[in-house]
């Protein structure tokens, strides 16, 4: 029986060795970029949009797409690298910062990616970018909005999207604009009709940051807040939270919610026959397809911060063409999520082309000196150039901007742009008409 024991023993040893053997990777002719996104868990629908957007951009870079009107559509691979194709290697962050960091390590050292893209959840971006910073590999962040991220002074981290401070400033510019009579199609609204404000934010990193920014700007710009609270976004029921909003008698409701809680809030407000004059959501849940698909006509009149809207096609024909292609593939209009990671891949393509090399230091230099004109982007931005737009920022895109959309005409309508006022595609619906 000693043989049997030895057999079990050696089997155990071999098993443990096998389990730890590394994953062999093959030499690639392509340029690999690691993309970390929440592909499972509650944020998975957003993760899917982000992934679809990124994949579309990579495809446009790699193949010729005549007639779109932006330079990368004419590329067949990266010109500066002899036509090397971009290969996106996706990895699921599960929305977990520790897991995201492990995936970053894996992508950097085992998959040997030349750089990283991601990761939507600000907490995941925090840890994943630490790995990139330690390894000296560039990390491009097109989709996380916590202001903290660009205040760390990292040398290997660049953020493309505007962050919460920006968007909150947009919100207050919008509110002040309403009072000044600049909103499209309506008369000036007296401040007393919009004040005080009521704010409900979900209590993870993102919601907490949003709430802080709103409170800061409200103080600066002189807007009173009647009620501001955080709630657990995994809640099963939000009726009493909605009641808090109605009880505050504030005519303006501001939300920072993910999809499930956004839907619950709207339903609860409808149930209570709430009568706010203005409802505004801070992106995320409020711009996901599931939001208007679930609520149908109940979304009409609700405004949200966004970075992109399919109606942009009216002012930017390139956006329209891209939207058509995207809609064919995924069944949905291009939205803020897919658009952001689309631009993320675009930034990478331009950086690789400019650096003419996959060497990290060359890429770092290229990214630091990058200057993409707004004409080449599908976003209504002035461009992509990294600098310090707000105090304490480093490597933050200075030329980005947000928009505010308002749902109009659903279930068959579109998210019309109501801010910036110069870019408005429709009259603003004000005051909020209520639910049937």
């Amino acid at each position, binding site marked *: 029986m000693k043989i049997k024991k030895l057999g079990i023993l050696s089997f155990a040893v071999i098993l443990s060795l096998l389990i730890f053997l590394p994953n062999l990777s093959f030499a690639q002719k392509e340029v690999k970029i690691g993309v970390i996104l929440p592909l499972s868990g509650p944020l*998975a629908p957003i993760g899917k949009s982000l992934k679809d957007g990124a994949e579309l951009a990579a495809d446009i870079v790699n193949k010729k797409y005549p007639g779109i009107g932006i330079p990368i559509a004419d590329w067949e691979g990266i010109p500066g690298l002899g036509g090397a194709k971009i290969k996106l290697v996706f990895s699921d962050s599960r929305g977990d910062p520790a897991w995201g960091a492990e995936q970053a390590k894996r992508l950097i050292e085992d998959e040997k990616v030349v750089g990283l893209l991601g990761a939507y959840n600000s907490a995941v971006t925090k840890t994943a970018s630490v790995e990139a910073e330690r390894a000296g590999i560039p990390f491009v962040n097109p989709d996380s909005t916590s202001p903290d991220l660009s205040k760390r002074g990292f040398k290997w981290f660049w953020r493309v999207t505007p962050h919460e401070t920006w968007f909150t400033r947009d919100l207050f510019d919008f509110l002040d604009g309403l009072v000044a009579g600049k909103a499209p199609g309506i008369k000036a609204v007296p401040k007393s009709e919009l004040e005080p404000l009521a704010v409900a934010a979900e209590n993870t990193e993102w919601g907490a940051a949003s709430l802080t920014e709103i409170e800061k700007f409200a103080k600066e710009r002189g807007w009173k807040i009647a009620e501001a609270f955080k709630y657990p976004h995994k809640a099963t029921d939000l009726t009493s939270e909605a009641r808090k909003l109605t009880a505050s008698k504030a005519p303006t409701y501001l939300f920072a919610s993910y999809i499930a809680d956004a839907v619950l809030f709207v339903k609860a407000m409808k149930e209570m026959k709430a009568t706010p004059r203005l409802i505004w959501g801070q992106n995320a849940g409020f711009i996901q397809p599931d939001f208007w698909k679930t609520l149908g006509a109940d979304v009409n009149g609700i405004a949200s911060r966004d970075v992109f809207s399919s109606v942009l096609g009216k002012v930017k024909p390139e956006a329209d063409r891209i939207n058509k292609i995207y809609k064919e593939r995924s069944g949905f209009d291009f939205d803020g999520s897919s658009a952001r990671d689309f631009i993320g891949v675009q930034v990478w393509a331009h950086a690789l082309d400019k650096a003419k090399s996959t060497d990290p230091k060359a890429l770092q230099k290229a990214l630091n000196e990058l200057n993409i004109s707004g004409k080449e982007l599908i976003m209504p931005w002035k461009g992509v150039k990294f600098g310090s737009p707000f105090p304490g920022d480093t490597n933050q895109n200075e030329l980005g901007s947000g928009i505010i959309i308002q749902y109009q005409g659903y279930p068959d309508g579109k998210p019309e742009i109501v801010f910036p006022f110069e870019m408005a595609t429709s009259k603003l619906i004000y005051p909020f008409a209520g639910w049937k």
Partner: protein
Amino acid sequence: MKKKSGSCLLTAEVFFRKRDEMELVVQLIVYGVLMGLIFALIALGLSLIFGVMNIVNFAHGEFLMVGMYIAYLLSASLHLDPLFSLPIAGLAGYLLGVGSYRLLVHHILRGPMVAQLFGTFGLMLFLRYLAMYIFTPDVRSVKQGILVGKTLSMGWISVDASKVFSAGICILAFAAVYWMIYRTKLGRALRATSIDSEAAKYMGIDTKGMNAFAWGIGGATVALAGALLAHFYYVTPTVGMLFTLIAFATVALGGFGSIVGAFIAGIVIGLIMVVSGQLVSELKFSFIYIVYFLVVVFRPRGLFGW
């Protein structure tokens, strides 16, 4: 003259504030009871299963999720009103419960409690990710139905019609289960098995069948609750865990194995949820857990438990 009008205004203000407060209290109670009854129905199955064979079903919330998806699928593909999907969901829940028992639970009963816990936990993960695979994580909801999206107004208070209906169904379901357990022969056999399964076996009761039946009823009631929830709540593969935790707290508060306990505890939990949502929303789950903790410490078997 001035003084009089001044005090008039004051009384008016006080009156309106008091009326506001009263309104608030009534609204909270109504919402709390409505939600609470649904929590009670969800907890009923869990309590039953534990009463009969001392096992906690971690996958309970996933059975709920199955009920929700059934209501959603029937509505989306066949345009079947979610009301009619109730019996179908109930039946599916029953089959799922019995199936889970015969394929898995029966085999883990002989092990230590630790193994039972993680056996049902594996079931939970399996069902959740199976749903994720089949349906993707997209959030869905039922859009049409006689009761979907309609509100009932009773004076100055208005509530979602489907919540009122659900509460009614919950009460009926409780009555039905209670009647079955205490007034039928089948129920007596079930009770006998839960008191002493060895003795029950000697008396000729098919204990394996009784266990399967308990799981079936447990699955049926919670899937029914799921189909009710689908009227006004979102449907996604991960919705189970939230309700599992609330169900645990409810059952423990009411006492494992007690039907009446589940009913009362559900309402209490619903009220706590709504009140703490009003006060400190971020900690509302904490309040429920703290209350559970205090109750079980000073009355370890919960309010009515074994």
